[in-house]
C-alpha cells in the first residue's frame, strides 16, 4: 500500500464521484430497507426489479422515448408487480428468511427472462444525457449522475417525510412495530402492506432507470450490487428512510478517498472495516 498525497482537485473530484455512486447505493437500498424493516421481508428480487426496469428503460429509450420519461410507464408497472408479489407473500404467510429464498428464486427467473430477451450481451443506453456535464467550482458534474443524486435525495426525503409526518406513515411504522396493536387501532395492514411493497418495487424501478443512465447492463450484474447495497441498508438501519442514503454515501466516499490516495484494490477493506468498527462500537445506533 503506497500512499500518495493527492491534489485537492483530485480529492474533491473523487469524493464527488463517491457521493454519486453512494447515492445510487442509497437509492437501491431505500426500497430494500423499507421492505425489510417495515414488512419483515428480505426482498432479494429488489435487485432483479431494478435490473428489469433498467432493461425496460434501455428498450423504451432505443425505441425513441426519453429515458427519464420511461419512468411514467415503468414506475406504475413495478408498483403493481411489487404489490402482486406481496399479495403472494401474505397469502402464504412467508417468514423473513423464507422470503429470501423465494425472492432468490424470483431473481433467477428474472435473470433468465432478461437473458432470453436481451441476450447475455452488455447493453449500454446511449442517451442524450450521457454526454452532458457541466463544470461547477472547478469540478465536473456529469448529468446522469446528478439525476441519480437528485432522485436519490428527493425520494429519500419524500419517503422520510411521509413516514414521519403523515398518518399513513405513522400507521406503517406502527404496524411494523406491533402488528396486533396497530390492527386494534384500525390500521388496515393488508392494504398498507400492498401499498408499501408496491412503493418499494417502484423505488427499485427508479434505481433501475438511474442504473441504465450511467452503467452498462448485463444480466448477471445484478448480483454484483447485492453485497454493498445490503451493507448500506443494514448499516443505515432497517426500515429507516434516511439510513441507506447516509450509509451508502459513507461507503461511497470512503471507497473513493481510498482509491484517490492509495491502491484502489484496497478500497473494499476501508469501507467494510469502517462498517465493522461502526457496528461493534455503536451497535443498533447506526446512521
Amino acid at each position, binding site marked *: 500500500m503506497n500512499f500518495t498525497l*493527492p*491534489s485537492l*482537485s*483530485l480529492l474533491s*473530484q*473523487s469524493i*464527488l*464521484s*463517491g457521493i*454519486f*455512486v453512494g447515492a445510487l447505493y442509497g437509492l437501491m437500498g431505500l426500497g430494500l430497507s423499507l421492505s425489510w424493516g417495515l414488512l419483515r421481508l428480505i426482498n432479494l428480487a429488489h435487485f432483479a426489479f431494478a435490473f428489469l426496469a433498467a432493461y425496460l428503460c434501455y428498450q423504451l429509450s432505443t425505441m425513441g422515448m426519453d429515458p427519464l420519461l420511461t419512468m411514467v410507464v415503468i414506475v406504475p408497472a413495478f408498483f403493481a408487480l411489487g404489490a402482486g408479489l406481496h399479495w403472494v407473500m401474505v397469502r402464504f404467510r412467508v417468514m423473513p428468511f423464507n422470503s429470501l429464498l423465494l425472492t432468490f428464486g424470483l431473481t433467477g427467473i428474472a*435473470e*433468465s427472462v432478461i*437473458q432470453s430477451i*436481451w*441476450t*447475455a*450481451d*452488455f*447493453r*449500454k443506453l*446511449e442517451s442524450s444525457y450521457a*454526454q452532458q*456535464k457541466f*463544470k461547477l467550482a472547478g469540478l*465536473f458534474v*456529469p448529468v446522469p*449522475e446528478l439525476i441519480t443524486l437528485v432522485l436519490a435525495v428527493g425520494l429519500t426525503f419524500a419517503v422520510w417525510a411521509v413516514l414521519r409526518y403523515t398518518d399513513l406513515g405513522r400507521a406503517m411504522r406502527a404496524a411494523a412495530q406491533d402488528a396486533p396493536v396497530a390492527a386494534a387501532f384500525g390500521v388496515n395492514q393488508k392494504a398498507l402492506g400492498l401499498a408499501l411493497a408496491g412503493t418499494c418495487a417502484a423505488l427499485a424501478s427508479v434505481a433501475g432507470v438511474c442504473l441504465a443512465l*450511467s*452503467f*452498462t447492463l*448485463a*444480466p*448477471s*450484474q445484478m*448480483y*454484483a*450490487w447485492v453485497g*454493498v447495497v445490503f451493507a448500506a441498508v443494514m448499516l443505515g438501519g432497517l426500515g429507516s428512510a434516511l439510513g441507506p442514503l447516509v450509509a451508502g454515501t459513507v461507503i*461511497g466516499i470512503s*471507497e*473513493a*478517498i481510498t*482509491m*484517490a490516495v492509495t*491502491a*484502489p*484494490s484496497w*478500497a*473494499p477493506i476501508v469501507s467494510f472495516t469502517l462498517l465493522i468498527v461502526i457496528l461493534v462500537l455503536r451497535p443498533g445506533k447506526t446512521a
Partner: protein
Amino acid sequence: MKTGKLSGLDRRAAVAAIAFAASGFAFAQQPSGPPIRIGSTLALTGPLSATAQIHKLVGEIYVEQLNKRGGLLGRPVEWVVKDDQSKPDLARTLYEQLVTADKVDLLMGPYATGAILSAMGVAQRYNKVLVHHTLGIPSLAKYDMQFPAWSIGSDPATTVPNTLFDALAASPKPPKTVAVVTSKFPSIQFMSAGAREVLKKRGLTEVLFLEWDFGNRDFGPIANRVKDAKPDFVWVGAIGLEGNLLLDAMKKIDYLPPQHFYLYPAPGPLLASPDARNALSATIFEGQPPFTSNLGAAEFVKIYGERAARAGFTDTSVETQAAASYTAWQILEAGVVGTKSLDDKAIANYLKTHKVDTLQGKLRFDGTGNFGDDLMRIKQIQDGKWVVVWPKEVTAGGAKLLAP
C-alpha cells in the same frame, strides 16, 4: 465390445469409401453412420455468459459447416454442449460426465481460464486431447495433450506488450510516459505485470500504476488519478466492461488520454462509445484483409455476422473470441483428418508435428506448453471501426496508428 466397435468402424469406413467413390469428387458426400460426438461445456448462464454465447454460436456454425462438408471421417458430427453455469467445479464434473458417462469421442475446450483448467485436469486423467479457446496464462497449461487455439505464444506477458510498444514507437508520437492501470483479474494482472517490465526495459517512464479489485464499480477516482498523472499513454488492463466504465469515468471529468490501450475489452460497447476513438487493443483476427484470406475466414465472417445479428448480439463482428473458438474447431478437425482416426494420442502427436492452417494463419504447437507464435496484432478504433495497425504486414490499405 472393443472388437465390435472396430469392425463397425471398418464397415462404416467401407460404406463411406463406396459412397465417396459413387458421389464423385466435386460434391461433398452425405455423412453417414453413427455420429462422432464432441463434448464441451460453456458458461451459458452466470457472469461469464456474455462471451460464452459467442462460443456457442461459433460451435454451432462450425459443426453445421463440417457436416455439410461431409462430417469427420465420413461420419456426421454431433456437438454435445453443457452449461457449466460459470462454475469451474461444475465444469470439471461435466467434463467427467462427457468422458465417462456420455462417452463422447472427442473433447472441445470451454473458454474461461478457470473452466479450461478444470477441463484440462479431466482431459489429463483420461488422456484426451483438449483444444481450448482462450487461456490467458500459458504457464498454467501443464498438460501434454492440450492445444491452445488462441495463438498468443508461450510468453504473452512479454511479447504482447512488446508488439504494442513497437507499434507505438513507430507511430507519429511515441509516448514517453505511461500509466498502467489494471484489474486484479488473474489473466489481466499477469499481462499488466509483463507490460510494466517491458516498458521499464524500453526506457519509458511509468508515471502511475494502479490496481483495482475485479468487480469495482466506481471508476471516478481512478480516472482522476490518471488525469492527474498526465501520461502520454495509458495501458488499461481491463476485462469486459471495465474498460468502458473507466472510459465513461474519464469522459465525465472531461479527460481523454492522448493514447490508450485496452487489453480485453468487450468489443461492441467500446466501439459504440464515442470517446473510444483512437483506442488501441490487441487481437488475433479481424474481419478485414489480409485476415479474410485465411482458411475459412471470409465465409465464416459472413455467416457469423448474419447469425449473430439474428441472435440479437450487439456486436456481430468476428474478433478474438469468435476467431479463437473457430480456430479450436479447425485444429481439432485437422488432427482428426490428418490422422484419419479418433485416437487422442495420434491426434496429439500429429498436431505437435504439423502446422495447422486456420483462421489465424498457420499455427504450430511445438513451443513451450504446446504454444506456438504470438500472433497478437494491435488494432485501433478509427472512424468507428476496428482497424489493424500493426505489424505492417497484416495491415490493410496502408492503415497506420493514428496519434492525435
